[in-house]
């Protein structure tokens, strides 16, 4: 379904005009219309803008909440995992070690949570107006970027405090951020599409995120695993993201082969998720 404007009164020599909008019964495989998504970029901006604006409305602490959660987690982790359990942190002070992981982790977790519930919480708009439904989960993964940016500043301050200077690898940092976003999008596409029909999925999210946190190298380094398992560990894309993040900023060991597995998993999940989402999109308004 293309959205470009065609001038329908311009038929020359018996040319049948091409319709701008074609509506047909649902199909099994629906191609993604990228030009249509591009046309709706302003709407995507407004959805993200709205989510950011209302998140901290009428709160006393406002955007401070963006850093309170990872900060408190870091304190608790440092006390119990770093202090009591004495988990190694690759030569980096434990607070910095865990905080550097918590920032991209929170970006992923928030993005996943918001995109999964994006369709259901916007049901009232979805049943009244047309726009490519992909906009909804995409807006879900983009709005936590603002929180991420604020927390990142705190991270830089912490690095200064502990006397860490980033290596040249910092130029690859955006790639790891992108990987984190793509992971939350890939999983979010599946979960948000499934959640429209089976509301179970929004309840699995808090549970899933808790499990996933401990399955990722946030409180412990991936070097804790024996070398032959480390590549398998890359099946968890967040493992690649977090290790890469720490490497780019703090100079720990680079993730190597693990990252390739992570990228592969994300690409597969993303493509599958896009196709599943586009197919289910045809039924959303009826089922939501």
């Amino acid at each position, binding site marked *: 379904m293309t959205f470009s404007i065609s001038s*329908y009164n311009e038929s020359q020599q018996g040319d049948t005009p091409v*319709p701008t909008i074609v*509506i*047909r019964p*649902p199909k099994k495989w629906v191609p993604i219309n990228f030009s249509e998504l591009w046309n709706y970029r302003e709407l995507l901006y*407004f959805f993200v803008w*709205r989510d950011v*604006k209302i998140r901290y409305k009428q709160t006393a602490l406002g955007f401070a909440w963006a850093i309170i959660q990872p900060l408190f987690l870091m304190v608790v982790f440092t006390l119990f995992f770093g202090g009591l359990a004495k988990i190694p942190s690759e030569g980096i002070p434990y607070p910095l070690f865990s905080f550097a992981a918590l920032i991209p982790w929170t970006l992923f977790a928030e993005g996943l949570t918001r995109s999964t519930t994006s369709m259901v919480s916007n049901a009232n708009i979805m049943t009244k*107006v*047309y726009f490519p439904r992909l906009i909804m989960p995409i807006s879900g993964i983009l709005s936590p970027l603002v929180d991420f940016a604020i927390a990142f500043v705190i991270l830089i301050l912490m690095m200064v405090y502990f006397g860490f200077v980033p290596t040249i690898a910092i130029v690859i940092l955006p790639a790891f951020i992108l990987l984190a976003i793509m992971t939350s999008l890939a999983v979010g596409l599946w979960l948000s599409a499934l959640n429209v029909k089976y509301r179970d999925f929004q309840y699995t999210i808090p549970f899933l995120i808790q499990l996933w946190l401990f399955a990722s190298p946030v409180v412990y380094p991936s070097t804790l695993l024996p070398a032959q398992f480390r590549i398998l560990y890359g099946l968890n894309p967040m493992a690649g993201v977090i290790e890469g993040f720490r490497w780019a900023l703090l100079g720990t060991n680079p993730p190597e082969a693990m990252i390739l597995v992570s990228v592969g998993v994300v690409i597969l999940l993303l493509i599958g998720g896009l196709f599943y989402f586009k197919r289910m999109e045809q039924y959303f308004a009826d089922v939501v």
Partner: protein
Amino acid sequence: MSDDIVIRVKGLGKKYTIGGPQEKYHTIRDAIVNSVKAPFRRLTQQGTDQSRNEFWALKDVSFDVHKGEVIGIIGRNGAGKSTLLKILSRITTPTEGEVDIFGRVGSLLEVGTGFHPELTGRENIFLSGSILGMRKREIERKFDEIVKFSEIEKFIDTPVKRYSSGMYVRLAFAVAAHLEPEILLIDEVLAVGDAAFQKKCLGKMGDVAKEGRTVLFVSHNMGAITQICKRGIFLNSGNLLDIGEINAVVNKYILNSTLNSGQYWSTTEDPNKPLQVLEIYVIDANGKKSSLFDISDTIKIVIKHRCTKELIGAVVLVSIFSKGTELIHTFDSDAHADRLVKRQPGVYIDEIELPKRLFKAGIISISTTTAFIHKSTTIETNNDVISVLIDEIQEDTSFKGYAAIRSGLLSITPKWTNLNLNQI
């Protein structure tokens, strides 16, 4: 001819399954239980009676819309009007059939789409405008106009959750009214707001229609529809019953929806009602029951009513409506004053003779009420129990002032006497 078709609908159908998997929020547990039950279900039922669970909201609907047409879509509740608009708006997909649209579509299916209560009026104008399909630049350009139309300049920076419902509706409509797509689909949005505001909205919609935009308008307000639209589509239970000139389609709709189209209506005696109308029918000059008359025919209404005891100040009221306006409001005691003073018990059969050439062509519907005038209490009301179609059958009214297509409610031709003529 086919050059300027903007919407082409062919064989459109939409099926919903009710009481089935789509009905309630589906949980995985339900899905698992359903699939376990499935083989057993087939054993306990004779075949799969899917037909009981299927509901066709639309079936085999086909029509074309040309550029610049303003079309009213009418029908009872549940006829499929909103479903049709939803499919044309791409919110839901059809089960069968095809639609081709040539041009940009803007849909107004509710007032305040996208409004968020925490955001201010200003912020919501941008959010809602963008959701409806306007570009940011477009919204900025029209911002002042929108605020002016909504009449809430003072509160534009207050969160919308603090607005009264009237303010909310005014702002929401102001945004929607400035949508400028080539094709506009509107679903009963004018059903909200006070009378003054509704008048303003109607005016704006009339302007939009005159600008040459193609408009599809769903409404129950026959007055608004006949005022704004030129063509009409009548949907009933998912089927397209009629399409054509708006007044003809509206007449068909009214005829279809009144309890008894023409001829005869009766009810059982109710001992609780001291004064009750029992039968009504309409006859022509020859005494024959009819529901179709020419504008020059005599129309007689026969009404049978029963009074159970001596009543003081009771009346039988007969009202005759045309296009939603009450043209005649008459008490039986207007002609028989003694009935008002003291009405004797008994069964009365009255005949009301309507003058010839009173009504214009169209449908008139008859309602009755019995009441105590002194106490202003109503005993019973029967609304729209009989309708009668009056048509220009015998006469060619093309050049007559009382032709149906011209304005005016009555076809009375008063006596024109020429008092003077000065030849030049």
